[in-house]
Each structure stands twice: as structure tokens, then as C-alpha cells.
């Protein structure tokens, strides 16, 4: 059950700082386009910034960067939102955890904050720690009444399975809006838009990316993803809904890799929650950018036919 007291704390913003994600921008542009577009349709103006870089989580947790570099990088990105006096909205679980955890850490450690601020002052910025970071799914859940009113393409007859992603629920044990072990807000959203939720056994399992394991320990990664995909195939949903572009990339692309390696036939289209909401709200087809998806294209077409273009 979503923690409703936490959801109520999320303000209904007029404007929000839209934090772009690397994977979403460069591999699945539909997530970025739909995220901004559906927020706009819901009456929230996304504000973007050219100066916003990658959150730095990947290079930090891949141990390429010294951790001393990641705090200023996080503070710099957050200060961009602070300059505009806005809260931040992210589309990626990784960005969410990284900005939240390290922001939280700096807010509770004055010495570190001072030394980070010294570095930011050199480039004419400063970090206060006043803004909050929300995941776009949190915002959608907050605005679910508006979504219910504005559905243009009801997802009738669409069977969707969900995957939340570890970095939102695991890392955000105390800050996520739902219970870390058995979340249900995405299911609620799907049902709200007229879809059917398909339960499957490995719902709360990791997608298998394993952060850097997909590069360094590919066998481990693929084995784990295969377990997940097996379970998904058993339930046979039309769509697999994720809320993290990195999980999205893994679940989408590994299907093809496993089909290539082992001759299996995994064909489940994977969609980001922003794309699903965009689909329901009637965002034009081009903006959903399904052309960037690899697995289950045929199935996706069927879904399109059902909901109407």
C-alpha cells in the first residue's frame, strides 16, 4: 500500500525542474519526450536546463570517479533547480537515489557541505539543500485524479505487468512513497487508466543489470535477467511497465541477446511509466518514440491497435 501520508506531502507544483537522464535521452528518447509532454498535459510546466549534466551516479558507483568528485557534481545539479526555486523531477531510479542519498548526506553533514560549497562558489553557484527530488512516478501518483480525468486512450484490454526497480524501492527504504517490499502504486495507476495488471512471481526481483555487472560480469547479469524474463513470459503480459530507463534498457535489450544466444523467444515490449501515461493521455505517436524499442515490436503494434492511435 502506498504511504498516503508521504504522497500527501508532495506538493502539486506549477512548475518543476525536469532532470534529464542519460539513458532516457540517448537510448529511449520517448521517455524524455513523454515525461515532459504528459506533465504539461497534467498542468505542470517542466523546466529544463542545458547546463544539467549526468547525475554522476554511474561513474561514482563504477568506482571510476573518486567519491569526492560526486558530491560537488550532485550539489551542482541540485543547485540548478534551486536557482529557479523549484523541486526536481527525475525519470530514472538511479538519478533519484543518487541525488536523494547524496543530497541528504550533504544536508546532514555541515563540514562536507561547506567544502562542497567552496568548490561551487568558484563557478558562481551555491547549494542550500532546500529543494526536494521526486520521481516522475511519484508525481503521477500524486496527480492521479487529474490523470483519471484526462485519459484520452483508455488502456482497455491491455494486460500490463510491473517492475519497480531496486534503486527506487531498495535504496529509498525510508523516502519512497511506497513500501519497499510490496509496492502497489504503479498497479493503481495502470488500473486507473483502464488497464489490467498481471501479477507474476518475480515481480520484486532485480532486473539483472547489476549496475556494472552487465559490462563486467555479463554471465551473472544475463542469468538473472533470464530468470526474470521466464517469470514474465509465464504470466504473458502485453506490456512490462518499468520506471527506470536502466532497467528498461536491460529488460528490452537482453531479450534480444538471449534470443540470439540461446534461441529463446522472448518478445515482451517494455515501456516506461511515463510512456504509458503519455499513451493514455493521448500524446501523439511520434513522441512516444517506440521506434527505439527493440523487443516485442509486433506485440506493441497490437496494443496500439487496441487502444487506438
Amino acid at each position, binding site marked *: 500500500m502506498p504511504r498516503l501520508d508521504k504522497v500527501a506531502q508532495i506538493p502539486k507544483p506549477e512548475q518543476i525542474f525536469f532532470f534529464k537522464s542519460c539513458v532516457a535521452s540517448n537510448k529511449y528518447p520517448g521517455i524524455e519526450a513523454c515525461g515532459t509532454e504528459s506533465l504539461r498535459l497534467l498542468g505542470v510546466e517542466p523546466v529544463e536546463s542545458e547546463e544539467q549534466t549526468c547525475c554522476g551516479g554511474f561513474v561514482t558507483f563504477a568506482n571510476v570517479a573518486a567519491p569526492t568528485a560526486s558530491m560537488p557534481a550532485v550539489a551542482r545539479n541540485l543547485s540548478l533547480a534551486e536557482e529557479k526555486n523549484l523541486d526536481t523531477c527525475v525519470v530514472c531510479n538511479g538519478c533519484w537515489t543518487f541525488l536523494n542519498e547524496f543530497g541528504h548526506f550533504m544536508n546532514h553533514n555541515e563540514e562536507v557541505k561547506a567544502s562542497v560549497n567552496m568548490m561551487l562558489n568558484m563557478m558562481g553557484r551555491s547549494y542550500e539543500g532546500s529543494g526536494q527530488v521526486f520521481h516522475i512516478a511519484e508525481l503521477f501518483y500524486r496527480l492521479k485524479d487529474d490523470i483519471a480525468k484526462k485519459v484520452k486512450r483508455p488502456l482497455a484490454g491491455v494486460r500490463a505487468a510491473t517492475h519497480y526497480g531496486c534503486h527506487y524501492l531498495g535504496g529509498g527504504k525510508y523516502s519512497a512513497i511506497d513500501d519497499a*517490499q510490496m509496492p502497489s502504486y504503479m498497479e493503481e495507476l495502470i488500473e486507473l487508466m483502464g488497464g489490467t495488471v498481471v501479477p507474476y512471481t518475480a515481480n*520484486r526481483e532485480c532486473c539483472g543489470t547489476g549496475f556494472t555487472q552487465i559490462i563486467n560480469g555479463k554471465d551473472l547479469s544475463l542469468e538473472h535477467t533470464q530468470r526474470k524474463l521466464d517469470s514474465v513470459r509465464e504470466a504473458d503480459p502485453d506490456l512490462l511497465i518499468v520506471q527506470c530507463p536502466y532497467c528498461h534498457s536491460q529488460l528490452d535489450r537482453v531479450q534480444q541477446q538471449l534470443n540470439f544466444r540461446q534461441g529463446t523467444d522472448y518478445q515482451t515490449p517494455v515501456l516506461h511509466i511515463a510512456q504509458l501515461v503519455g499513451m493514455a493521455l493521448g500524446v501523439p505517436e511520434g513522441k512516444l518514440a517506440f521506434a527505439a524499442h527493440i523487443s516485442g515490436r509486433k506485440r506493441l503494434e497490437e496494443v496500439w491497435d487496441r487502444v487506438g492511435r
Partner: protein
Amino acid sequence: MAKKTLIIGGGIAGITAAQKIAQNGGTALLIEKEGHLGGNFAKLTYTFPVLADAKGIVTREIKTAEELAGIEILPRTTLESCRGEAGNFTVELGTPSGRRTEQVAAIVVAAGFHYMEPTAYTEYAYGRSAKVVTSLEFEKMAAEGRLPQGPARVVFVHCVGSRDKAKGYRYCSKICCSYSAKHAIMLKQANPEAKAYVFYIDIRALGKGYEEFIREAMEKYNVRYIRGRVAKVIESGDKLLVRAEDSLIGNPVEVEADLVVLASAMEPPQGSRALAGILGIATDEYGFFREAEANVRPCHSSKEGIFLAGSCTQPMEIAAAVAMGGLAASEALILSR
């Protein structure tokens, strides 16, 4: 004529205290918020470490108490207020027939305990799946003969809510190890075909015959004890998948189960802090009543004339609660003479 003693709570500790006071020439006023006496003990089917008929024992004890002349039993009664000092308390009781004021010399608090509802443990699917039950519900199932039939697999999970800083309490509930063994034996006796798995962290069998009892469960009844806390229970079709680590071999393991029994923690009784406020006695960080001195004066509360008995002070087994009830009774008698 000796002065009266008020006993709060009609569980086994309260009943024992009332009996002892009456048998030694005192008068006891036993109040119970439920409609019947017996407390948590009355919800059990068997006792441990000797598998004796719990219902029979409770009925016998209640009957003894009811027959004794010096005991007045007030069911559905709560304490409303309390004034005065040791030897001369004025208490106001809320009975079904209205308020009633009494003069008592001493008060024995035997408010018992409460089984925690493990709703916070969503990873164990409690509340979502009908096949995940607490120990208390398992007792009920056993009493009604609804235990799984045929070659079913039942998983018992220790330390649900106990020894858990994040979602539960940091203390050990002391009796879960023993009663889970009891449940496993009950299952095996009712249905020898069934398989029982117990996931534990440490086996804390501190008491006469407890270790032997648990070893008996392992060796005679072939209950499989696996060291490791269950990480999650997943619904898979009509089965449950229980995932944990067997930390003695260091591998994660998975058991397919038909029923999962959660040994939920012993909590302080509901409203224990409010009761402590009325009486003016201290509680500890969890809401258990604090004893004046843990070792040699375990039944003295922080206020003179108010005594504690049973599991409202700490998690404890039946024998200890009975012993403490007797001790509280003798302390109360000193004041009421």
C-alpha cells in the same frame, strides 16, 4: 477484615495472584477488560515443553478462582482512575453497570501482552495471502482441525518483529523458539505426512526441558531447522516460495511451501502507556512496565503499593508468569494486613 487488593488483568498471572491472596485470607478484586478470564493462555491448545491440554488447565484454574470466597471477579471492567498511596488507594472502576469506587490496599498489574500484527512485514505477504498466518492463527487452526492435510510443507519463521530495529522491536520475545517447536510438533502429530521447516537465527530455549523439547522436535519428529532469517515469501500460483539463506552452508535457499507461520513478537499490552499514566508508574522504551529493581524485586513497580505480575513486564513463559503472580500476591498481602 483485611483490605482488598485490586488485580488488573485476568490472565494466568492475575488468576494466580487472586488465588494466592484469597487462599491466604485476603480479598481480591479481579478486573478483566474482556468478557471471560484466561487471557492469552486461553487461546492456546497445548502448553510447552510438556504438551498438556492448555484449555483444561485454564478452565481448572478459573474454576478454582471462581469457587474461592475471597475473590470478586469483574469482567468487562477497566480502571478509570487511581488516587492515594500504598495501603490506601482509591480506585474508580468502569463496569458494564456503571462506575464503581473501591478502597484497596494494593494493586497488582497483570495486564499481559499482545501478539504483534506483522502487517509491516510486507515481504512475508502477511495479509495478502491467506496462506501466511501468525502463530496465534495457527493455534486457532489447530484447535479447529484446519491444519493442512496430506504431504504439505509448512514453514515456520522465527523473529518476526523481534530482534528487528527497522520494523519491530529490538528485544527477543523469548518464547517464540519454543512455541514454534510446539507448533511443528503439533503439525507432525496431526499430520505425519507433512513437512515442517523452521527458519531461526538462534535457538533460545532457556528453561527447564526446553532444549530437550526442541531437540525432540528435530530428532524425533524430523522437523528441519535451518539457520537464517527468511528474506521474502513470494506467491507463486497456489504455492508460496520462501527465500532465505541457510547460513550454516552459506547458500541462499528456496522452499516451496503450502503454509507459512510467522512467530510474531510479544508486544506490550495495548494501552499499557495509558494504564501506566493512570497508575502513575513507569514504563520502559517499548511500553512494558518497568520494575523497581530487575533482579531481586522483579514485581515492584516504580510506585510503592503497585506490583507487577506476568508478561506485562517483559516477554515471559507461563511458568514464570505464574511464579511472578504468586510473588506479587504475597507482596500485596503484606500491605493489606
